[in-house]
C-alpha cells in the first residue's frame, strides 16, 4: 500500500509538476489560528503540509521561523498541542503531514512515545534537523515500526559518501537544502542548488524536494525545470502569518492566494 507521501508525489508527477510542500510552525501564533492557517494552505493546493514542532533553540532556522517558534512557545504550545492540531486537520483532510523538529524535543518525550503518538495522530513523516544520519539508528528503527517516513536534510556540502548513507536510510522524500545557511527568503535559486539536485539524483529514486530560500513562482519554475519533485516553502508562508498577526481573516486569505499563485506556475509547466 502506498503511503500518503508517496501518493502525493505520484499524483504531482502524473501531472508533470513538482509537489508543493508548505511549512508553518505548529501553534503559531496559537493553536486555533494555526489550524485555520493549515486549512488555508490545504485549500490553496498544498500537496504536503510540513509542521514545525517549535523548539527554543532552532539552529537550522533563520530569524523568521525562530520568531514563529517563539510565538508558538509563548502561546503555550507543547508536543501535546501539536498532536491535537494534527488530529484536527486529520478530521477534514488526508493531506500528508510531516513534522520538522529538533532532537531534544523527541528525546525528552522518549523516541518510542513520540513516534507512537505521531502515528496515532496521523503524521506521515518526521525530519529531525539536528540529527545526523550517523546517529539516526534508533530513530529510524522506531519510525519504521510506526510506518513514519524518516526524512533527512542534504546540503551542498554533504559528501557523496554521506548522500549515499542518507539515501539508504531515508523514506518519503529527501529535503535538499538549496542554499548554504539557514531557512529564510532569498533572491534566487542558486546554481549550487541545481548541481546538488543532479548529484543526489545519481544515488536515489526517492523524490527530491528543494527547500530553504524558495518563495516565488519564478523559483518554483527554476526548480521544476531542473527536475525537482517538490518545492518546500517555509519562511515566505511564515512571513505572511507574521505580517497579519492582528488580522487573522486577511492572513488566511493571503495564505490561500499565495499557495494558489505558486501552484499556478506548476500547472503552466505542462
Amino acid at each position, binding site marked *: 500500500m502506498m503511503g500518503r507521501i508517496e501518493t502525493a508525489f505520484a499524483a504531482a508527477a502524473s501531472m508533470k509538476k513538482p509537489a508543493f510542500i508548505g511549512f508553518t510552525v505548529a501553534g503559531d501564533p496559537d493553536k486555533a489560528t494555526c489550524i485555520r492557517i493549515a486549512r488555508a494552505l490545504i485549500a490553496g493546493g498544498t500537496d504536503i503540509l510540513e509542521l514545525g514542532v517549535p523548539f527554543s533553540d532552532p539552529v537550522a532556522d533563520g530569524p523568521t521561523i*525562530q520568531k514563529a517558534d517563539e510565538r508558538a512557545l509563548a502561546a503555550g504550545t507543547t508536543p501535546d498541542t501539536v498532536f491535537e492540531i494534527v488530529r484536527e486537520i486529520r478530521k477534514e483532510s488526508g493531506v500528508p503531514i510531516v513534522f520538522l523538529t529538533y532532537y*531534544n524535543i*523527541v528525546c*525528552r518525550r522518549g523516541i518510542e512515545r513520540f513516534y507512537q503518538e505521531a502515528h496515532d495522530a496521523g503524521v506521515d513523516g518526521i525530519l529531525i534537523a539536528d540529527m*545526523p544520519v*550517523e546517529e539516526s539508528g534508533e530513530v529510524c528503527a522506531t519510525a519504521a515500526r510506526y510506518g513514519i517516513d524518516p526524512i533527512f536534510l542534504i*546540503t551542498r*556540502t554533504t559528501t557523496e559518501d554521506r548522500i549515499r548513507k542518507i539515501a539508504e536510510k531515508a523514506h518519503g522524500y529527501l529535503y535538499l537544502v538549496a542554499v548554504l545557511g539557514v531557512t529564510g527568503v532569498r533572491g534566487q535559486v542558486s546554481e549550487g542548488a541545481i548541481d546538488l539536485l543532479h548529484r543526489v539524483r545519481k544515488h536515489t529514486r526517492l523524490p527530491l524536494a528543494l527547500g530553504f530560500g524558495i518563495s516565488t513562482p519564478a523559483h518554483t519554475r527554476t526548480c521544476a525545470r531542473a527536475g525537482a519533485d517538490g518545492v518546500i516553502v517555509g519562511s515566505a508562508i511564515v512571513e505572511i502569518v507574521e505580517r497579519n498577526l492582528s488580522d487573522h481573516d486577511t492572513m488566511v486569505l493571503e495564505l490561500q492566494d499565495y499557495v494558489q499563485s505558486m501552484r499556478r506556475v506548476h500547472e503552466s509547466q505542462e
Partner: protein
Amino acid sequence: MSALLELEGAYEKVSKDPQFARDLAAFQTEYAGRETPLTFCPNASRELGCRLYLKREDLVHGGSHKLNNTLGQALLAKQMGKKRLIAETGAGQHGVATAIVGAVLGMPVEVYMGEVDMQRQALNVFRMELMGAKVIPVKSGTRTLKDAINEALRDWVANVRDTYYLIGSVVGPHPYPLMVRDFQSVIGREAREQVLRKEGRLPDVIVACVGGGSNAIGIFYPFLTDDVELIGVEAGGEGIGTGKHSATLCAGDAGVLHGTLSYLLQDEHGQVMPTHSISAGLDYPGVGPEHAMLKDKHRVTYVAVNDPEVLDAFKFLSKTEGIIPALESAHAVAYVMQNAERFDKDDIVIINLSGRGDKDVAEVAAMKGGA
C-alpha cells in the same frame, strides 16, 4: 556534519604533528606568558586553615585561560586554509581571546555576543573592537551565550567553506569538546609539575568553576587517574530552588543541545530554560559532555554556590591576597570559603583562578554593598 568531519580529520593530523606542537608552545611562551605561576596564598591559607594555591590563569595574556584554546584552534584554522574566524562569547573573555589571535595571526574575526551580555560586559566589547574584531549583537532568544552560539552556528553553516568556528568551551559537537580539552589541559599539566616541585606531593583537592567547563576540564584532566579530590563549582545564581541559576550538573538532566548529549537545563517538554548567573561566563544551560560523564562516574563532585557568596569571595581574595578574581573564578573561591572547616591545615587545595576580575569591577561597584 561534513564540516565537523573535515575538522576532526584536520585536528587528528595536527595533534600528531611535532611542528604544530612547537609552534603552539612558542606562542604559549613568548606571547601568552606561559607557564603561569602556581601562587601560594599565605594570608588566605591562614584564614581558611589549609595550604591554598592559585593556578594563575588570570595572568595569561588577555586575562583568562581562554587564550590557551584560541591559540590552538586559530593555528589549526590557519593550517586548514580558513580565512575568517567566528566565535561566540558570554562574558567576553573568549571573544577577547579570539580577537587577540585574529590580530596576531592576521585573520578577520567576528564575534557573536548576546545583547544582554554586551551591556554587562561593555569593557570587553570595547577591547574586542580595539583589536579589530567585529562584535555582532544577538537579539534572538534569551540574548545570552546560548543564543550567541546559535547565531555563530548559523553563520558557520552559511560560510563553512572559508570560515572557522572557534568555540570557546568544551561544548558543541564532536570534536570540539575533545579539542578544547586538549588545548586547555596545559593548565593541569603545569599545575601537576609545579605542585610536585613545591610540595613534593600531589594536592588533596582541586577546585574550579564550571559553566561550559573548559577551565575545569583543563586543570582536572591530568589528575583524573590520581588520588586527588576534584570539585566543579557551578553558578547557583539566586539559589537552585528559585529556578534562577545556571547549575546544569546539579539541577539539569540528559538532553541534546548544540550537537551534544549532556546535562541540560530544560523544561518537561525539552525546551531549553533561561539561565541566570552573576557572571555572564557561567550563564549557559548546557555543560561539556565529559563533565556529565565524570559526574555519572562519581569522579568529580559538582556543587553550586550562589551569587551573594560569590561576591563575598570576590572581595575576600582581593583584600587578603591583592588578587581580584573574575566573578566566574570567584565561584571556586566561594566553595573553599564555605567548606573551610572540611580542610586540615596541611591539606593542599588548588583553585584554578581562571580569569582576572578587572572586567567585573564596574558591575560589582554598581551593585549594592560594594567594598
